[in-house]
């Protein structure tokens, strides 16, 4: 169970022969992910941890028609082309790990993907994981155990931190999705929460926001408008961040008075979503919601 990815997910790795691609292919295989093929132009015939490599997505999909998802470790300048190639080959889920993808590229390929009913997660994200055995991403395997908590986050390592807190408190994860730290990303909180609502294995959701933009505020309005909800615990990173400075993530910036942690925390509370002040409060809040 879980959302978006599960034991039926058959994965293509674009950029598989690169350092990152090859490294994480190993860990995904160890976790149990069904990786059928990889693509790196010019590397046809090679194998990476036993996974066959092709020159084009078209060839890979021809050889393995079961492929339904692509995970990208492609260098930023080539991400757009790789996404178009995957979409035009009929792939319906694309997870983009790559950082520093130009925003104008993202705008175009995300709009294109939407036209073609292809779901894009990222760019600049840690990926998506449905324990116990399906990971399209770069999370540390051992922190993600199966359970009934949905986790959605704009941040990478912070997601692992929260998975670690859940683990220590005997809480497991249905699916964890890192939606990415860029201003323009393929899938947002509202869309992921919508998946969690429909997922029987998810009982509550942890939503990890950060400064920049108004995705948390828009989620709060959406949540407020719902009749049937699942409980949400929120966390917002960047309470101590100054205005006008990008905090690592391209999207994490308070600009023109917009996107402060304060605004997001207040909005969450306004619609009845409890907000953890520290990561270690998250399991406590979750347990109290689940015991209601």
């Amino acid at each position, binding site marked *: 169970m879980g959302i978006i990815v599960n034991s039926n997910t058959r994965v293509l790795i674009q950029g598989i022969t690169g350092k*990152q691609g090859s*490294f994480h292919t190993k860990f995904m295989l160890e976790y149990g992910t069904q990786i059928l093929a990889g693509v790196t132009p010019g590397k046809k015939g090679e194998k990476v941890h036993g996974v066959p490599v092709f020159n084009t997505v078209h060839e890979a999909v021809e050889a393995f028609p079961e492929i339904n998802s692509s995970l990208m470790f492609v260098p*930023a*300048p080539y991400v757009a082309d790789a996404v178009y190639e995957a979409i035009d080959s009929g792939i319906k889920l694309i997870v983009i790990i790559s950082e*520093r*993808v*130009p*925003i*104008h*590229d993202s*705008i*175009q390929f995300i*709009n*294109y993907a939407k036209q073609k009913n292809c779901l894009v997660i990222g760019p600049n994200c840690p990926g998506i994981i449905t324990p116990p055995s399906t990971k399209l991403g*770069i*999370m*540390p395997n051992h922190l993600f155990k199966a359970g009934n908590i949905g986790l959605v*986050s*704009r*941040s*990478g*390592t*912070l*997601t*692992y*931190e929260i998975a*670690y807190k859940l683990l220590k408190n005997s809480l497991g994860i249905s699916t964890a999705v890192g939606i990415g*730290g860029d*201003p*323009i990303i393929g899938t947002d909180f509202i869309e992921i929460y919508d998946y969690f609502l429909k997922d029987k294995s998810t009982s509550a959701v942890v939503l*990890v926001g*950060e*400064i920049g*933009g*108004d*995705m948390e505020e*828009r989620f709060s309005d959406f949540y407020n408008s719902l009749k049937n909800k699942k409980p949400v615990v929120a966390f917002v*990173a*960047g*309470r*101590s*961040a*100054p205005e*006008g*400075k*990008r*905090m*690592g*993530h*391209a*999207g*994490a910036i308070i600009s*023109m*008075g*917009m996107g402060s*942690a304060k605004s997001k925390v207040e909005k969450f509370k306004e619609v009845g979503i409890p907000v953890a*002040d*520290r*990561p*270690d409060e998250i399991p406590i809040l979750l347990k109290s919601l689940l015991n209601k």
Partner: protein
Amino acid sequence: MKLYEYEARDLFDEAKIPLNKWIVAKNYDEAMNNYKLLKFPIVVKAQVLVGGRGKAGGVKIANNEEELKMHVKNILGMNIKGEKVNSVILAEAAQIKKELYISIIVDRNSRSPLILASKEGGVDIEEVAKKDPHKIMKIKIDPFIGVRDYMVRRVESFLSISNINSILKGLYFTFKNYECELVEINPLALTDNDELVAIDAKIVIDDSALFRLNKFKNRISSELSYYENIARKYGFSYVEQEGDIGIIGNGAGLTMTTMDLVQYYGGRPANFLDIGGGADAEIVYNALSILLEQDRIKGIFINILGGITRCDEVAAGIIKAIKNKGVNKNIVVRMIGTNEEMGKKMLKEYNIDVFDEMEVAAKEIVNLVYKN
């Protein structure tokens, strides 16, 4: 990356967006040699990247040579919110009937460019949006069809003007061509003879696209402080704050949360420093060195959740810094994940305590820095 007004004006000239007549000068002599191309009254504008230069005295009107000399002298070299003024724009003051606003921004929500037009210009657009939302029109631009004539007609109708076609097309040309996050004219002046003229120019370029923007790819951003520029060179992310507890983390969200926790327990974070994913000992060494060098920093909190990042590499980097730079500050390390045991063992030998929980570690550094 934010551009200086004079750089933005250059791009507007290229896009044939009408501007009030202007020159830029890097020093007093240059200003005095060239100002005669312009008619009085002339506006003298400090070239800085921080906002609010007007209120800080960085914008003055000169009605004659006397006043001009005075203003140029005063403004050049001025310090505005920590930024030194290295150049000024001199521009003819337009005869303004009405101040409007027009911009194209990247809209996170619709994942598209957005035209923002306001009947009220020359003021903070966010303020207008809050106070008088009906004064603002938003039009989504589909990235595949761009700015269409019908959008021009809608903006014209909304602003009660009839000649914004070339300005709007020019803005979009600049927006696309230079991969902008923002192109803004505020104010867009309607002059006494019903012409539209840009009186200011603001452009923010997407940093991630710089590699393919030949015009700007080698421009050093003077927004950045000394240490921020060093950090960029070493390949990690560093943002200066005013506090006294140095922060190192891996991952932007975790690093921000580390700062937040220090603040939560009563401390003052001195910086944001994200070593990124998979950092080796050398990066950790460079990162820690930057913090060790700064006298204002009294303690350092290193928070690592090892995934791709290996704890032994982090430990090796810390040890190298301690050996080479000496330890004159409190250091608290929180470290779990890949090769955790090895890293912990290495640091033990240097008498550095390693914590498992970031909350406990945060409390500890605050205690060490302020309670001793």
